């Protein structure tokens, strides 16, 4: 009989809901629970935190998530794979061991996967940046971090070494799911078609609720039941790569062919060449069919040789953003909102606020899709003025919000609810690094 494993997806981003993962551990009959919690620039922010405190730099919700699922996972032997290590997987592993002990759990083996930090190699090579003209050297001391998207191999090796919990930093999101498949089925690391189909599974599952009805509902067109109790997905994977996507019976949401199709193309460019550290996956021939209530079969994922390079996220300091908002309502709200924007525009010039880029929006009118697409809409009852600008320093950023706030006493009638903010920006750019320059390592901690 063909072997299958069930992998639950317990988080689709760093701030995701906690209880759907508990539900998966409790009622999902899963052998693996994966938490994808690391956004594009999160590593750079975590790196800053680690520089201030060497024992920090991992996901701020690690403790809450681990406390919520560890007792169930330990009791049932469910293995956890997560990128909550962020900029410090070793400290995250040590902290997880402490949490396990404090919960009275013994004998858990926790692996930290290191080696995604490739800042030195990137600086030495002066690699070109993919998104704009320039190189890492040209960013100079603005560069904070460089982390390579590692593949599934070191995570699978950690599982093979007996890890109950695998904690990584930057890794490809689908690889978090591919690792248990490689471990459970002994897939060869050059069986491109299996790795391609496994990547389809990982890609579908990695955003958790986005395949069970989240980011989907459109009342009257695409209705989804019980989104407040949205269940997170389970991938039932066979050793031949066969895949059924489902969720815990009785949980909110729905897994349908439609939710699976939307998620298949989410953040995908050329579907025939989805570049991953483990494989060049081909989604172009994928077939999706509902086979029974709440069960969707996904087949036809393929693959080709993996790229010779790894994608690296480079975090760098990119100045400041200042912002202010204020609202107008009732008859003439739109005209007063427009007047407010004109006043702020003139004030920023008169007072010589040094901004390299400015944006003037009316929330409720044109802030999301611009003037052209918004032109046909009828006049709203209320509008919210928003002005945002990019500056070189914090002082200039603060002045932008101030010029919105002073509309209270100097602007049009009836302006209310002003807020202002100023923040430093950590932006992310990408480079490609020859893969042999990233050297993953595994360390174990016992609880």
């Amino acid at each position, binding site marked *: 009989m063909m072997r299958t494993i069930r992998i639950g997806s317990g988080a689709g981003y760093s701030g995701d809901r906690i209880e759907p993962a508990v539900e998966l551990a409790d009622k999902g009959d899963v052998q693996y629970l994966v938490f994808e919690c690391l956004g*594009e*620039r999160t590593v750079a922010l975590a790196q800053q935190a680690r520089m201030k405190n060497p024992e920090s730099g991992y996901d701020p919700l690690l403790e809450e998530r681990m406390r919520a699922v560890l007792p169930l996972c330990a009791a049932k032997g469910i293995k956890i794979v997560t990128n909550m290590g962020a900029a410090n997987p070793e400290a995250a592993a040590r902290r997880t061991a402490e949490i396990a002990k404090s919960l009275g759990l013994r004998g858990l083996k926790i692996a930290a996967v290191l080696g995604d930090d490739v800042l030195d190699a990137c600086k030495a090579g002066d690699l070109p940046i*993919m*998104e704009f003209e320039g190189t890492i050297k040209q960013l100079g001391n603005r560069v904070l971090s460089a982390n390579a998207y590692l593949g599934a191999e070191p995570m699978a090796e950690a599982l093979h070494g007996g890890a109950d919990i695998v904690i990584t930093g930057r890794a490809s999101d689908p690889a978090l799911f591919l690792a248990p498949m490689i471990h459970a089925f002994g897939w060869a690391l050059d069986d491109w078609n299996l790795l391609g189909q496994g990547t389809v599974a990982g890609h579908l599952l990695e955003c958790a609720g986005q395949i069970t009805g989240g*980011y*989907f509902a*459109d009342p009257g*067109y*695409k209705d989804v039941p019980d989104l407040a109790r949205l269940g997170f997905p389970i991938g039932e994977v066979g050793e031949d790569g066969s895949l059924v996507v489902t969720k815990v019976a009785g949980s909110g949401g729905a897994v349908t062919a*439609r939710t699976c*199709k*939307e*998620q*298949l*193309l*989410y*953040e*995908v*460019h*050329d*579907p*025939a060449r989805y570049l991953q550290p483990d494989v060049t996956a081909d*989604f*172009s*021939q*994928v*077939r*999706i069919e509902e086979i029974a209530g709440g069960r969707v079969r996904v087949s*036809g994922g393929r693959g080709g040789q993996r790229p010779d390079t790894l994608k690296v996220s480079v975090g760098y300091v*990119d100045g400041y*953003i200042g912002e202010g908002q204020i609202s107008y309502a009732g008859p003439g709200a739109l005209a007063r909102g427009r007047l407010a924007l004109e006043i702020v525009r003139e004030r920023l010039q008169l007072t010589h606020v040094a901004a390299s*880029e*400015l*944006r003037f*929006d009316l*929330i409720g009118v044109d*802030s*999301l*899709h*611009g*003037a*052209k*697409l918004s032109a046909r809409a009828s006049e709203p009852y209320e509008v919210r003025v*928003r002005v*945002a*600008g*990019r500056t070189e320093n914090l002082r200039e950023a603060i002045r932008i919000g101030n010029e919105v706030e002073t509309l209270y006493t100097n602007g049009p009638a009836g302006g209310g609810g002003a807020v202002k903010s100023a923040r430093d*920006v*950590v*932006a*992310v*750019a*990408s480079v490609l690094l020859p893969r042999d320059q990233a050297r993953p390592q595994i360390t174990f901690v016992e609880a």
Partner: protein
Amino acid sequence: MKLRDIAHSRTGDKGNISNISVIAFDSKHYALLCEQVTAARVKAHFAGVVAGDVVRYELPNIAALNFVMSQALGGGVTRSLALDAHGKSLSSALLDLEIELPSETN
């Protein structure tokens, strides 16, 4: 008729690139999508929002198109001044496209 009546859609983001899927509710409308929802038409629809090229990929097995739009997110998700820095709301704008339904496929 609006595109929204025959198709659904989801937006994804990577850096300064936005991709929008357009998926037929019923595969019988896939040919209509291919014919009327062209890359040029999508680029024109998003004039003023998308500064770069629009490339279309076809997925007949799932009756879907994938539009990849460059220079679409105000310099990139991590540095954009926009309220919706990810461009998550762009799919809804695309579903507002007018579609002419030939009588024989209705």
